[in-house]
């Protein structure tokens, strides 16, 4: 299931400067596994010791916050677009 993943600036040192990468996974969880295979060290930046997404990271599948879907179990399809976005932004 190749999907397009948008990488925010703070993680581009791991993705060799790429702002968009292709990755595979049936779910968001599986996608993180594949990202970590391609770019070792990415997983620990995205999830904490208990395997949960870090507090200050939001993940969107096709512009929808995955917390409104099935969180890390959210299913992915070919051609989906995933955005990883730092949570700290905004205010009225």
């Amino acid at each position, binding site marked *: 299931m190749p999907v397009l993943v*948008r990488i*925010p*600036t*703070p993680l581009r*040192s791991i993705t060799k400067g790429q*702002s968009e990468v292709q990755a595979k996974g049936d779910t968001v969880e599986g996608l993180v596994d594949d990202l970590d295979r391609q770019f070792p060290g990415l997983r620990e*930046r995205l999830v904490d010791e208990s395997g949960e997404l*870090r*507090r*200050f*990271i*939001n993940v*969107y599948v096709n*512009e929808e*916050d995955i*917390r*409104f879907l099935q969180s890390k179990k959210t299913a992915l399809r070919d051609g989906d677009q995933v*955005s990883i*976005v*730092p*949570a*700290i*932004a*905004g*205010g*009225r």
Partner: protein
Amino acid sequence: MEKLNGLRCRECGRRYPGAPVHVCEFCFGPLEVDYRYDALRGVVTRESIAAGPPSMWRYKDLLPVDGDVAVGHHVGFTPLIRAQNLADELGCKEIWIKNDSVCHPSWSFKDRVVSVAVTKAREFGFDTVACASTGNLANSVAAHAAEGRLKSFIFIPADLEQGKILATLVYSPTLVAVHGTYDEVNRLCSEIADKYHWAFVNVNFRPYYSEGSKTYGFEIVEQLGWRTPGHIVVPCAGGSLITKIWKAIKELKTLGLIEGPMATKMHAAQALGCGPIVTMIKNDTDVLVPVRPNTIAKSLAIGNPADGYYAYKTAKETGGGGEHTTDEEIIEGMLLLARTEGIFTETAGGVTVAATKKLVEAGVIPRHESIVVCITGNGLKTPDALYGRLDAHVKIKPSLSAFDRALADLKSQTA
């Protein structure tokens, strides 16, 4: 005076040089301005502040501005009003209204954060400022960009109140109305900020921008005669203001400008239709569950607040609470403040007044303790909320006899 150490991650403590960045590269935590309080102690005094201008810039030493103030020289130092009529109505002893509905120049507390952010944008050499906004920030960024001769891109949810759209367009920004909620606008802006080299006041300039909110807290304490109130009730959207008012009190304590213990309890006010922070406080959990907003308080309609976690921690740390308010209670809150104190606030202010009333009635705020109610925006921007509620008025022909009849009718109605 060297007062700044650059930026520091609020979570992991990692240090960064002063730059337009807002997120820790390692843990994604928020970056905060790091002050050298040792250098400020004894230099910033009650007297030095009192000798400053009658604006938020009297606290410039406690703001992340190195050089001259670029825009918004007259922002802040708004009235703190003893609201005895409201206190009598609620059965309380001492209520104060910190009234930023009359903040110069765009009639909300957002002028405080924007004047700092735009000043920093000029310092860093940006020619374009931008923001994601529910309205008040849009007004303020557009106004200060005009003053600073900067280009501006303003992103708003397309369904915003007409008053707030007009009060942005008048300054000739590029206004982008996005078909989506504020949270969707905000997510889009995070991605745009990553791609375009602009000063997004509430994204990459957030560490500087958010510091401006401290001045609201500094003013409360100074205007109370360097006294801290028992309670402060704060409207919450992104959750930054409540954390920064508390930070302001802590800084004044650090600098030795207030005596005694810091006993102020910080309370969060939100709409029932968009209250994720108050839900955290009520459920006593630090995990934020985002919501899809459905409330007339559009300026507070942030379902995924960036500082939700810190707002929750502030309420908990200070022993404060939080309250949700229905749309009906919000309107009643607006009318209550107008009827008792002659202050016309926007829906967000209705939320704060209504939440204060509920916190008092529930006994969370004891009636004999001092309360500051934070009014942060102007009612003339959101008249839509009151259409259909206030149509009772007397219509007559221009004759004395017509008026005599109308007056007799009124008397018989109230008899």
